[in-house]
């Protein structure tokens, strides 16, 4: 009996995942533990290992489309098992189930593992039982092979209606039409259409949702970075010696914010229905980029960690993001986010709140700026901080008090001691 390779549940609340890329090809011999494919969840991309050794066949195309957890995505034929052994029928829900019988001679051994989506169907969408959607929206999504969770609802309380599914469909890249593919190539009249990857899809839907549900308001302050720079210069080398990583301004800012956030509970809170959930710890998400995608790993319990501990943890997270080994657990549970684009020469910017958090701090570059001090014009290293807050639970004065504390803590870090 061939061994089925299922789409595994790699995250606690995961209902669907996608196959981002196969690392093996149809007919390859795989050893137990070999990397078979990259699985995309809504938080990270991870590698999935072979559950057995044998010849792998019937690969579901790596379309990046959501597939329900538990769906068979390939079969491993053990030694002695003929490739013509019919694998057990695939899960009934899987529209794009592999064909049981492969053509005897495939023109290209890699054809089945190409990234082209199946032309006659899509992977079955997951049940998405937590999504608010009308029956018609679900039906329409089903007919078009869309996972309803991908669709942004415009109805009351975010309910997805048929209109939303159709709008989503209109944005989706068109199916590759075999006839058109064979037509003589014409000069492209439009720019290249780059389909969303799983991470981009999540970014798009979560940020749209945030702008829709959370009334954002913004507050900026120019803060003198002199004291913080001096502090970094003083303790940076010592910390580097201790933990092997030099602390960055971003992690120092995380330390400062973690120090003051306990005094501002509404900025370390989430809207839950008609209530605000006040988080008992400060988990600071740090926005970072990988291959053009936004990732936000979380510094957990930051209020109780010193700069050295945060630096070590931040180093680990940054490396994991770069190496694509970041675990969903590392990107979950943030209560406040810092996004620092100062290193790109950005003076200031406003950010979209990372739901379900209630605020995000956008940091611009530090630039020597003439300011008036004691009747003199002096140059001071100033940076512009922009706080985006969710006005459902954060009022102007609440945000302003946080900004005042932030200024004090940055300009005089000793207050945190």
């Amino acid at each position, binding site marked *: 009996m061939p061994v089925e390779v299922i789409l595994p549940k790699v995250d606690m609340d995961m209902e669907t995942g996608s196959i981002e890329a196969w690392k093996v090809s149809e007919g390859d011999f795989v050893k137990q533990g070999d990397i078979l494919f990259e699985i995309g969840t809504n938080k990270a991309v991870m590698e999935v290992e072979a559950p057995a050794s044998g010849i792998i066949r019937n690969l579901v195309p790596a379309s990046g489309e959501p597939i329900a957890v538990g769906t068979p995505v390939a079969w491993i034929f053990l030694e002695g098992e003929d490739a013509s052994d019919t694998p057990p029928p695939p899960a009934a829900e899987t529209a794009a189930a592999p064909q049981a019988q492969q053509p005897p001679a495939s023109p290209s051994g890699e054809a089945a593992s190409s990234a082209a989506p199946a032309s006659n169907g899509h992977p079955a969408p997951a049940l998405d039982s937590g999504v608010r959607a*009308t*029956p*018609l*929206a*679900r*039906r329409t999504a089903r007919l078009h092979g869309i996972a309803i969770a991908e669709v942004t609802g415009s*109805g*009351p309380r975010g*309910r997805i*209606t*048929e*209109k939303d599914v159709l709008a989503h469909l209109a944005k989706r890249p068109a199916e590759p039409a075999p006839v058109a593919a064979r037509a003589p190539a014409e000069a492209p009249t439009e720019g290249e259409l780059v389909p969303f990857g799983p991470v981009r899809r999540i970014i798009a839907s979560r940020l749209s949702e945030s702008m829709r549900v959370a009334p954002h308001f913004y507050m900026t302050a120019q803060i003198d970075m002199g004291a913080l720079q001096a502090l970094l210069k003083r303790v940076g080398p010592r910390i580097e010696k201790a933990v092997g990583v030099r602390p960055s301004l971003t992690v120092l800012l995380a330390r400062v914010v973690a120090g003051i956030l306990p005094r501002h509970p509404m900025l370390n809170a989430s809207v839950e229905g008609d209530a605000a959930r006040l988080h008992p710890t400060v988990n600071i998400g740090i926005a970072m980029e990988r291959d053009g995608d936004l990732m936000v790993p979380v510094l957990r319990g930051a209020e109780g960690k010193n700069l050295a501990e945060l630096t070590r943890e931040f180093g680990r997270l940054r490396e994991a993001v770069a190496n694509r080994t970041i675990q969903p657990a590392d990107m979950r549970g943030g209560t406040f986010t810092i996004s620092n684009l100062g290193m790109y020469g950005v003076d200031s910017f406003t950010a979209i709140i990372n739901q379900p958090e209630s605020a995000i701090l956008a940091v611009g570059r530090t630039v020597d700026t003439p300011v008036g001090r004691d009747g003199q014009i002096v140059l001071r290293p100033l940076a512009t901080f922009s706080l985006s807050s969710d006005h459902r639970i954060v009022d102007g004065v609440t945000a302003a008090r946080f900004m005042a504390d932030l200024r004090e803590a940055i300009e005089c870090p000793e207050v945190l001691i």
Partner: protein
Amino acid sequence: MSTLTEAAVESAVRELTYAEAIREALAIAMEADERVFLFGEDVGVYGGAFGVSGDLVHRFGPDRVIDTPISELGIAGAAVGAAITGMRPVLEIQFSDFVTLAMEQIVNQAAKIRFMFGGKAKVPMVVRLPGGSGTGAAAQHSQSLEAWFAHVPGLKVIQPSTPHDAKGMLLAAIDDPNPVLIFEHKLLYKTKGHVPEGDYRVPIGKAAVRREGRDLTIVGSSIMAVRAVAAAEKLAQEGIDAEVIDLRSLRPIDFDTIAASVRKTHRLMVVYEGVKTMGIGAEISAMIAESDVFDFLDAPIIRLGGAEVPLPYNPVLEKAAVPQEENILEAARRLARGEA
């Protein structure tokens, strides 16, 4: 030749009130079939509490237009007996509220006899029930109890909304070999509409699409169908294209027409004067939810029914207790936005 044409034109534009249309149906049935007779409180010389029987006593005599004592149980029991023996009684319950006194005869006898006697006995009787609110007649004279009877196998329950249908459906009811209850809304009696001359039938169990639309479906019967059409015309000016289905018959119910409409519009609202809870709206909503049409719903179903109160005497409160055109408008706007 020219006389015939004029008559045809005359007939085509002829308008009668709802009450006149019913009276005309009764007269046609009585003329055609001597087994048909009327029965009820003040239906004779007084002409009926709402003037529906009018001059019929003078045209057909007191043996066929019979004033009864004030006993709904007696009227209904006598009608059941007469029907079993082969007569075609048409009885009037002066206010439909009083039908509570006749429940035994209608629900336990009329509805059951044909089944319990294996078809050897039939009860071809028609019960006319003036119902509904809006006349300041208070809690015991204003109810809409039609759903109670639509719950009973063996009964047919109809609720025409136009003079045309009132005549045609009453004639169909008199033809019917089984008991039929016709609920006539008191506020409709004076409404006018085209009524063809002569004998015609409007089938029982067939709904009418009063207005075609794409955006949402409003289902109602009797005066609610009338209010729904008026509301739909206003909605059209706001860009909301409502389809209005006049149920006409509650039992049997024309589910196919409702289903086809909801399949098209994806949104359903049921409007009825009876108390909202456990009513017609619940039944139609459940029928849709149970069927394959469920998959075509793009918004929660809205039930717009009567308030959970005995109908007030105060005319302002009375109006507030029953769906009015403004309520239908408001609910339809919500439905168009997909709100529950």
